[in-house]
């Protein structure tokens, strides 16, 4: 149970950082494309 909780927490943490990174990159690319 402890292992499962720990691995889930790590997965959520990594998922949060990766998904936010992808979202901001996409938004910046769109914004820079619109600007030009």
């Amino acid at each position, binding site marked *: 149970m402890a*292992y499962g909780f*720990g691995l889930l927490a790590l997965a959520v*943490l990594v998922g949060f*950082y990766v998904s936010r990174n992808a*979202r901001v990159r996409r938004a910046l690319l769109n914004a820079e494309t619109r*600007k030009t």
Partner: protein
Amino acid sequence: MAFWEFANPKRFMGWSGRALPWLVALTVITLCSGLVWGFAFTPNDVRQGSTVKIIYLHVPAAWIGINAYLMMFVGSLIWLIRRHHVSALAAKVAAPIGLTMTLIALATGAIWGKPMWGTYWVWDPRLTSFLILFLFYLGYIALWAAIEDADTAADLTSVLAIVGSVFAILSRYAVYFWNQGLHQGTTVTVTDGAQQDNISSAFFQPLILSMAGFSLLFVTLVLVGTRTEIRARRLRVIEGRDL
């Protein structure tokens, strides 16, 4: 290249972009090896049985929980003294990682403590200072979110990081100058290379590998997060909107 040149966001983005693929690969290999080795290929303990395998999550998570705050302390000092934005952003980004690691350490410690000590929790020096550290992480993240102006937020959270670092240090060293309490003393000391203190050799190597994996994960996520924050700031400049 001097260290301070990475305070330039463009240089930081260039360097971190080149380093990240290697870091990600190394992190995955090290972390997976350590956890799989520890969980599947180590013997059960004579007294603790299979419960001892929580150590491969609990100890590395606690290690990162303390060191993440110390990194935030250093980043905050650099912001207050030299006003490098990259440093403040790195500290901001490290906080949720440290919070998660502290939570993992507290939760796995409680789950481990019940069969071993007969209780989920005691108010001993190490556990109490760790809980306070967890609350400081929460406060730090909340303070960043509460203040609209980024530079003011960085100033105030830097002060909080410096004050809270006392508890990070206490968590690590409390057992040396208070009564021992229920929590065991140091498992691993790092002087000339890591040395095992209170742990059998069979568990020590996968533990070190797990700790290395968690450390690499921390560095990787801080780099990813800082790059995201730099891009978000650029986006705010272009569009004048919050992310």
